[in-house]
């Protein structure tokens, strides 16, 4: 298949892995003191597991799976708000598929659906708008979730709805922004990271300029990376080259999709519809300043939070959960006390177990479960 197979070429992978090995040796890292690289985005985490990338790398480099899975970092209170909205008789609650299973303090959306709520899975906010057109007597709410990647599509949907004069459509906005979150991670005292794989699809929207501070002030290199396995290997190689050559820059490996300046049209739509919240609550990471957006007052009619007066209760993460430490790369998923025991994809306690992009679910699903207890087994490859 064109534009796919080229990026999964095994012979090219072998060449890259060989050179990564050489660079690691030159930098002077080994198994006892591995280089720690965080892939920010959940899409990277998923690819790394799906293609077995981690097992191909030497143990002198360690991948830390970052917070870039929007489903994973959604706090329970927000899920409760979703359920409260969905429970209203007039509401058709629409959502992307993988948000359905995120546990709330009472129930997930999947359970709410089973209990009789009209919850429907859609593939685009425009599908939700079409539902609103088709059901003028109902209130259609779209669960707006995701980083800057999905923000433009919900913003444009709101603009569409406004142009058409559709009144029975609104967004329950849980969009979050990546940059303040990376900053929060960089500010955490237990940080040990040596560099970042930057989020490719967020960068497609925001460009590379917003990351400059990471290299300038925190002295950590970043390479904006694509999502195919060769993209990931090449980006790691680029990071190692920077470290080896004593450079510290924001580089872009994913230029074929993510232009340096981002997408002006998308940014314009986002700025028109959304404004920064003072703070937003993240699962596992707590409250982070300016890390979320809400619908501007000018579009208040499309804001489900205003329309339905959500309970907005703050629910603490389960005590046994160590999602936060996993998100910051302080511990590996299997080092969490409840991993694979009380917390599994079937009965997720922490959000990292819910989405296939969550670090814990990825470990559980694709091979990490025994790792740590039995390193040798997982590194056969």
């Amino acid at each position, binding site marked *: 298949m064109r534009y796919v197979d080229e990026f999964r070429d095994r012979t090219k992978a072998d060449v890259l892995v060989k050179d990564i090995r050489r660079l690691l040796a030159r930098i002077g890292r080994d198994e006892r003191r591995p280089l720690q690289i965080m892939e920010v985005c959940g899409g990277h985490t998923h690819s790394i597991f*799906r293609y077995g990338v981690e097992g191909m790398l030497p143990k002198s480099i360690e991948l830390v799976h970052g917070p870039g899975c929007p489903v994973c970092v959604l706090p329970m209170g927000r899920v409760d708000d979703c359920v409260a909205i969905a429970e209203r008789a007039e509401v058709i609650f629409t959502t992307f598929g993988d948000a359905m299973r995120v546990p709330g303090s009472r129930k997930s959306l999947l359970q709410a659906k089973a209990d009789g709520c009209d919850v429907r899975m859609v593939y685009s906010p425009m599908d939700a708008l079409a539902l609103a057109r088709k059901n003028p007597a109902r209130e259609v709410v779209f669960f707006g979730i995701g980083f800057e990647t999905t923000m433009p599509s919900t913003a444009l949907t709101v603009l569409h709805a406004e142009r058409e004069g559709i009144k029975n459509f609104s967004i329950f906005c849980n969009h979050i922004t990546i940059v303040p979150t990376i900053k929060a991670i960089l500010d955490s005292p237990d940080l040990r990271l040596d560099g970042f794989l930057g989020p490719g699809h967020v960068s497609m929207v925001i460009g590379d300029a917003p990351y400059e501070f990471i290299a300038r002030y925190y002295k950590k290199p970043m390479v904006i990376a694509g999502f195919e396995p060769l993209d990931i290997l090449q980006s790691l190689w680029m990071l190692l080259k920077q470290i080896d050559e004593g450079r510290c820059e924001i580089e872009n490996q994913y230029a074929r999709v993510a232009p340096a300046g981002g997408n002006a049209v998308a940014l314009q739509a986002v700025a028109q519809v959304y404004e920064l919240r003072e703070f937003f609550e993240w699962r596992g990471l707590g409250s982070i300043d300016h890390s979320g957006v809400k619908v501007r007052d000018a579009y208040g009619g499309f804001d489900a939070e205003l329309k339905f007066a959500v309970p907005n209760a703050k629910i603490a993460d389960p005590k046994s959960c160590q999602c936060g430490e996993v998100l910051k790369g302080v511990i590996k998923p299997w080092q969490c006390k409840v991993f694979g025991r009380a917390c599994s*994809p079937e009965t997720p306690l922490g959000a990292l177990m819910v989405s296939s992009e969550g670090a814990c679910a990825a470990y559980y699903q694709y091979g990490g479960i025994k790792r740590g207890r039995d390193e040798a087994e997982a590194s056969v490859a």
Partner: protein
Amino acid sequence: MNMVSFPPRRSRGTVHVPTVTLAHGGGGKAMKDLVDDVFVEAFDNPLLAPLDDQARIDLLDLAQYGDRLAFTTDSFVVDPLVFPGGDIGKLAVCGTVNDLAVGGALPLYLSCAVIIEEGVSIDFLRQIARSMAATAQEAGVKIVTGDTKVVNKGACDQMFITTTGVGVVAAGVELGAHRARLGDAVLVNGLLGDHGAAILGARGDMALQSPIESDCAPLQGLIASLLNAAPNTRFMRDPTRGGVATVLNEIAEAAQVAIEIDEAATPLRDEVRGFCEILGLDPLYLANEGKIVAIVPPDEAERALEAMRAHPLGRQAAVIGSVVAGEPGRVTMRTIFGGRRIVDMLVGEQLPRIC
């Protein structure tokens, strides 16, 4: 074969209304007319004809095929009812026929119980019944007994069908997941994931035009050739819901062995690959309705592959992996990229990723 005497042919009723109503489930004349005009008309065979409460099958007749009865049942609630490559009727026959065949049985007789939502058109019901009849003929089975119920609007989604099947297992045929041994080959009879992708595409809720057709097909013929070529075949299963990944996990668990498959050897249609790429699905978990996974001893693998490829439903058969030394119950995959990952049981439903 034993001679059975059948009662004289009775006159058949005819339906004169365009849609099914609750009256058609009432047990009276309307129901008799519906059963006669739609189902008996399509399934027509001497065992069904008397329309007694049961079909009576001669034991000596069955015994000529083997020494054990195989007995299975399955319900079909597919949405949409008609999809590229098939419909609920075809599926209801194939599903039960295949469940018998993968056990090494020769499928012989089916029952057909239909739950119909009021308001379904008679013509559509007829179309489904004819589809069942045509598939039954292709599969060499007879539909010999059945039941019809009509429920209120909203109590079911147009039509649910349950088929129960009996078949006979030939003497000496012994299959079981627990019989898998180190070194055994894992075979499939063709391209994987077509049914799951066809159904998802046909639901139309993601505005994706896809040319993918369901692989829905009765497999008794292919399986007979396979067993003939590889008589020591250990086990077969049709990877329907949960896909190949789930079946392999069940085998690994039952036999307490490890299984490794090779992504590069796994036959997939480009359209299915593309479909999965876009939606973030894993084709190994997509349903199939015309495929088997077979575990075959290494010395019979080549013959098994040839036999499958010689059959129209096995042209793209492949050896996708083998039983290996490793942690019992574990299924792994060598990725195209050269890495290795675990292929676990599917948890819940496959939900598309959002970004």
